[in-house]
């Protein structure tokens, strides 16, 4: 029974990672940059939702919607102001800028809301956990909704990318920026849209994560961000199903190593798994092989 409980919380955590990883993977796919500020967008989303419910008295779901809108705008703004001027200048410059943006967001949060942790009220506060198997197995509403949300988002996003015109444009830009431009695709718009979707999803992920782990601080987003990034690489960066698989596997590994091996070493085990996967498949589980023409 403990195994099942762990599996479910692993899936739940993994779903959060998967949703965050989507942001990383889509942004990497389209602009070949490691957006280290993505984790902090989650944190901002968390604070926004927190403020809306605590001070504005909004309903949790409405607050989530507001947080999504704000994060979407934030994502587009970050891309426009910080990343676009550096497009095509190599990954190092953009990486450092992303780190700068990450510092910026963390310190803005620190200035406004202080370093003291805030207790986040779960989005599913009123709901009761489900008990099964004579009360041996408890499934929290957070777990159920997170896993559900992950599945729904994944389906919608896959449909969006494969069926809609905007989605196809995004894929074209990821494949070949220059050629897409020649075909009349507005590259700037596509990239903005990618950042918008990624950041909106980050708000969802933030609220879902904080519902399960309710400690909200300016640095809340950093570690989940890094792990979700790891998940994206794990699954093959640039691939949407890869992000989902990577996220789920990582979440399960983390929960299981916490439960059965060592709490302190759980992160080390997660990262070690990433390294093993990359050694066997250098571009991740579902990543494409890159080859250089001689």
């Amino acid at each position, binding site marked *: 029974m403990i195994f099942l409980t762990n599996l479910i919380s692993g899936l739940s955590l993994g779903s959060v990672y998967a949703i965050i990883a989507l942001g990383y993977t889509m942004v990497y796919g389209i602009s070949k940059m490691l957006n280290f500020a993505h984790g902090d967008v989650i944190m901002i989303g968390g604070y926004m939702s927190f403020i809306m419910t605590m001070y504005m008295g909004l309903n949790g779901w409405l607050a989530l919607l507001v947080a999504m809108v704000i994060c979407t705008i934030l994502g587009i703004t970050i891309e426009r102001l910080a990343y676009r001027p550096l497009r*095509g200048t190599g990954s*190092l410059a953009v*990486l450092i*800028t992303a*780190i700068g943006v990450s510092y910026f967001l963390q310190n803005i949060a620190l200035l406004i809301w202080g370093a003291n942790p805030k207790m986040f009220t779960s989005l599913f506060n009123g709901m009761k956990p489900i008990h099964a198997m004579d009360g041996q197995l408890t499934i929290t509403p957070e777990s159920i909704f997170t896993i559900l949300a992950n599945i729904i988002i994944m389906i919608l996003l896959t449909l969006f990318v494969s069926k809609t015109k905007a989605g196809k444009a995004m894929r074209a830009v990821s494949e070949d920026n220059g050629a897409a431009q020649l075909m009349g695709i507005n590259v700037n718009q596509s990239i903005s849209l990618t950042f918008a979707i990624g950041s909106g999803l980050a708000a969802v992920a933030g609220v879902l994560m904080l519902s399960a782990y309710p400690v909200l601080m300016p640095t809340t987003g950093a570690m989940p961000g*890094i792990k979700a990034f790891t998940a994206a690489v794990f699954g093959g960066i640039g691939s949407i199903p890869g992000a989902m698989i990577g996220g789920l596997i990582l979440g399960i590994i983390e929960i299981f190593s916490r439960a059965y091996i060592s709490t302190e070493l759980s992160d080390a085990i997660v*990262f070690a798994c990433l390294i093993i996967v*990359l*050694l066997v498949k250098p571009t991740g589980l579902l990543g494409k092989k890159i080859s250089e023409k001689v």
Partner: protein
Amino acid sequence: MAERILKNIRIGGLKNAVKGNDYRKEATISYCILIGGYILLQILTAAGLVGHNLQGQFVPICVYISLAVSLNLVVGISGELSLGHAGFMAVGAFSGILMSRILLQSMSFEPAILIISMLFGALMASVAGFIIGIPILGLRGDYLAIVTLAFGEIIRNFMNVLYFGFVDGKLRFAFNHTIEGIEDTDRIITGAIGATGTKTMASFTWGLLLCLFTVFIVLNLKNSKQGRAIMSIRDNRIAGESIGLDVRKYKLMAFVVSAALAGMAGCLFGLNYSTLVPVKFNFNTSVLVLVFVVLGGVGNIWGGIIAATLLTILPETFRQFADYRMLTYAIVLILVMIGTYNPAIKSRMNALFAKFKPKKKKDDGKVKKKKSGKEEA
């Protein structure tokens, strides 16, 4: 066979050609900055112009300088992005601290203890670099970056569960649980609490020596056959292979030497504080060092030295504005990156510099004429 120089060969204009790196100049500038800065800070301290807080930053500044210089070996010279430099620093720090405590049992001559500890720290860090480097250096670009990040975190995680201490004068080791029957004063490394009771031996002068040594090694390496091999693989991997260079070997060499130097710096850092927590060596520290390297100019040794110094001193000086300090740091970082890398701004800056260029070229011409005159004579 008669001496034959190929006839009819025209090289074409060298107008647009750029002179290569002048190693001697680079070394001179680097050493001058280090020694000059040291003397300047010593004078300012003697004059009482340096606050207590800043004085406490002297050793860390030196450590950061040598970290930046050693990371430059990987990022600038080898051309690979590493996000786990703090991991090697951690290995060097904790193994160095351990060694110093062991030596202190039988020795009392501090400089010798310090040097042996630093060498041990370098050795352990290079072993770590070797173990990490072998499997991952086949990866490319961003994948390598994420794996170095992962390794940095793994190393830090392991430090959280390591326990070292003396029980009845004998060194004891435990993993994931405390050592039984240990007294507080005999603890060396206590898991997440880190190293305690370290005898601090580091000083500004040792810091300077560390910096000089690091710069000496890195610059020498750069201007040697190994350095050339490393740089040529950076410039063109396939061409490197085609002239018989073992790509992995030289990437690994850069990585291991860099790790060893980081370990040495980490050891000095460790011996600067009586207590040291493993959290100190997290991802943020790796990023901090990377920022020094990038702001100083990738591959530019003395640029990294200046960046490391300024970026450690400035936030410290503005400590009274603690709240806005890091915010400003972030904004400045973004602006500087955009200012130096944005193609439009870059070309505008170049146009600005071009105004000063004609003078230089004339000078060059004169020098060349003089030289050729000598040859004729």
